[in-house]
């Protein structure tokens, strides 16, 4: 029971911290002091206490978008295990529900953006659906490769079934799948090299430009939702890479959390050492992710 509570609450509490770690890493690498680690918590607190301004063009869809998005992402977070225990929601095929819940969140973000009637937000929405349509096959095929490696159909089973032995026996397969997942993670969370969260030019944004018109609590829901989404996809990646061990629950949990923050540092390093790809190159990166997933699958299929 405590394990389930921890599995539900810990991501919800710690998710905004990931962004703090990423920003701190970037600041350190750039020789700056950087914003406080807890900056996103302060932002959320401030936004939740503000009023809101709505465009006259918008309708209830615009107001519903952030709520539907956050509710779908929160539900999805219950499918991902933490520290190789059973997730609160786990069943055969739960990874499909996860992928489509994230799809639901995206659909409502996109139509909320179109509701403003702004050319900029339409542009962001168009880019978002384009890139996610390509990320989806990479994500599900990568998970299919892992499902075959572990002969299991739920995320809990898959992530708990990847042990040292799996790494020893099928390192290339796992590495390919992890590479695909990393690209999907970066693309879906609007990080460099797909999207630059620090850009100030609306013309070059993807995710940020879709939420230009949201304010107050709505914007808090969006920011919080994206941080939980980053946690959800990151936890899958981290636990796929870190093999399950037979250590005690607390130790596994600690390893998993350490992995999460190591991932945040990695993202910070990636953002410090490379620039965003040109918009026209992004589909090629995502096709590379699909290719990694396909390679992983071919290697897995060739195993006796």
């Amino acid at each position, binding site marked *: 029971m405590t394990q389930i509570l921890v599995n539900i609450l810990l991501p919800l509490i710690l998710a905004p911290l990931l962004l703090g770690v990423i920003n701190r890493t970037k600041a350190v690498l750039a020789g700056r002091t950087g914003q406080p680690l807890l900056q996103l918590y302060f932002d959320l607190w401030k936004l939740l206490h503000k009023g809101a301004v709505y465009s006259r063009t918008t309708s209830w869809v615009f107001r519903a978008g952030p709520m539907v998005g956050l509710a779908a992402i929160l539900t999805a977070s219950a499918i991902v295990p933490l520290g190789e225990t059973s997730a609160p929601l786990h069943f055969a095929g739960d990874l*499909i529900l996860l992928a489509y819940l994230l799809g639901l969140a995206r659909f409502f973000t996109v139509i909320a953006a179109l509701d403003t009637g702004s050319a900029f937000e*339409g542009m962001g929405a168009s880019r978002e*659906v384009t890139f996610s349509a390509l990320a989806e096959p990479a994500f599900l095929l990568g998970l299919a490769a892992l499902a075959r490696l572990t002969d299991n159909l739920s995320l809990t089973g898959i992530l708990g079934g990847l042990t040292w032995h799996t790494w020893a026996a099928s390192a290339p397969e796992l590495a390919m799948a992890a590479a695909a997942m990393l690209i999907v993670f970066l693309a879906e969370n609007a990080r460099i090299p797909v999207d630059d969260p620090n850009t100030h030019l609306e013309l070059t944004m993807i995710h940020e430009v879709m939420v230009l018109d949201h304010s107050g609590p709505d914007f808090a829901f969006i920011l919080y939702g994206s941080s939980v989404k980053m946690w959800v996809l990151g936890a899958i990646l981290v636990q796929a890479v870190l093999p399950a061990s037979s250590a005690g629950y607390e130790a596994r949990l600690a390893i998993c959390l350490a992995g999460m923050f190591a991932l945040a540092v990695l993202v910070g390093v990636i953002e410090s050492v490379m620039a965003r790809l040109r918009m026209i190159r992004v589909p090629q990166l995502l096709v590379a992710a699909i290719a990694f997933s396909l390679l992983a699958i071919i290697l897995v299929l060739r195993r006796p």
Partner: protein
Amino acid sequence: MYFTVAAISIFLLGGLSSLIFGRRHGLCAFFGIGGAVAGAATAAVPAIIVLAGGSVDPISWPWSMPMGSFRLAMDGMSALFMLPVAILSGLAAIYGGAYLRHYRDKMQLGNSWFFFNLLAASMVTLVVARNGLLFLVAWEVMSLASFFLVMMENERADVRQAGWTYLVATHIGTAFLLVMFFLLGRAGNSMDFDAFAAGPMGNVIFLLAIIGFGTKAGFIPLHTWLPEAHPAAPSHVSAVMSGVMIKMGIYGLLRTLTFLPMPAEWWGWVLIGIGVTSGVLGVLLALAQHDLKRLLAYHSVENIGIIALGIGLGIVGLARGNAPLAVLGFAGGLLHVVNHAVFKALLFLGAGAVAHAAGTREIDRLGGLLKKMPQTAATFLIGSAAISALPPLNGFVSEFLIYLGSFQSAASSPADAAIPALIAIAGLALIGGLAAACFAKAFGVVFLGEPRSDCAAQAHEAPAAMRAAMIILAGCCVILGLLSPLAVPLMGPAVASASGLPLNVANQHLADAVSPLLWITFGAATFLALLAGLALLRKRLLAGRPVGQAGTWNCGYAAPTARMQYTASSFAQPLTDIFRIFLRTHKTGRDPQGLFPRNADLQTHTPDVFHDGLFRPAFLGVGWLMARLRWLQHGRLQLYVLYIVLTLLVLLVWKLG
């Protein structure tokens, strides 16, 4: 079965009375709608009995046709197809009553109602017919009735063009079916389904069925009539045609499979190939469309692809003795038949309401309709989310079953059996992402933002009868989505009769799928509870705080106009560019020139590559050949009489000799 016979009679009586009272608007509509609704309600009764686990007595009457008798029977599969036929016919009739109102001074609506009821009657007959001749007669009546419905506004050239395309396509399909039924009936010397035997011709019959039934269903590349005929027909007819009539092709294919021995594995591969091709190309072509109903028509191609994918996986499962895959594949495909009927009909009715209100179906001329027609918009949103397979709606459930079968097979089967499953996963994932993109575009551009033209600005909400039909269908999307753990086990008889597996095997594997479905419903309930919680939280947070109104933020630009909004074409442009190799979009226009450009413009047009690249040359070739034979036909009566005499003479000599 007497209910079914009664339903067919009610449809015919209603249609005929409507034709007779064609000059009196009230009576004509009364009989047309009344016949359809009463017939639909009657037809649904035996279907519900069979789906609930009961059975109905078959009918076998002698008739004057050769080879066999007039047989009607209903098994699980018939019932599963019958229920959407009945529900959609009834709802579309209610909607059509209001939709056709502004046509009634222009044309005789008696014809329209007659053919509508005839279409419903023929589909009801088709799914219970157990004799090849009866099946073919019903098939042909269905095709002709729908042809006349498509041709309702035949004073317009594009409608006539669409009608002729449809007529030619459907008869090419029927030609293959004639050969197929002849081959099936030859062995047993009877056209009764019970006596059918494939003999050694199983593979040929399967291919004939794929082409013959695939033309009606809309498998790529046989789909070219769909994007022509669906937009041309009145919207309630498009809903019935797209919702259930094209599914009769799927029904025919599944019924034919039951005549054949154990399917070969390559049949499954063929269907998976067709499924992925139709699915991906269908949704890509839909993305590139500017006409709302044409877009929906291409989505029918996509969804037929998903259904074929499910059936293909089911056949692979059967051929390999993998019963869970077989059951999940067939169940997913069959459930998607029902689900697609519900949400596609809903979307076509919504598109009809938009066209009715704004007077145009051009997506780029619409916009901001949500404020003018809130109920239509809300139901269209539910339909859009359902067709994009988003939880917690019904489209997700059927795709989940196909996914679940694929993942099971991909995780545990031998490598060569896992490959079709992996193809299915990749295909479904890509289709899912693209479909969501396409419906974000369709809903977003049509209903959200500011009106892009005067006709959109002057739109009004649809009449109550039209809204009622859409609200009921939207309710079905939600209910089928949330109550899937109750609905899926009811499919046992249908899956058993489609796949040929014993009923207890089908029931057992469906019962295994109930546990994930229960979890999904639990997840959906969690989602809805969280949503309610967040709504409450937002309301409390905003209470007593300043909530202002302003113009949309345009990065400092102070005088935005509705024309500056992103259009459907620009929204889809990145995707249509990535996949341009399949789409061949033509772009014409002038680039902006100078510092203050004035006369720039851009036009895009995405032709159907199969229509322009495959069928047009083929038919031009046929036309050329026929022209070579023109010397036979002079228009002189004496010569024609001579031809007849000569033919008779040849036949006489042949018979004597």
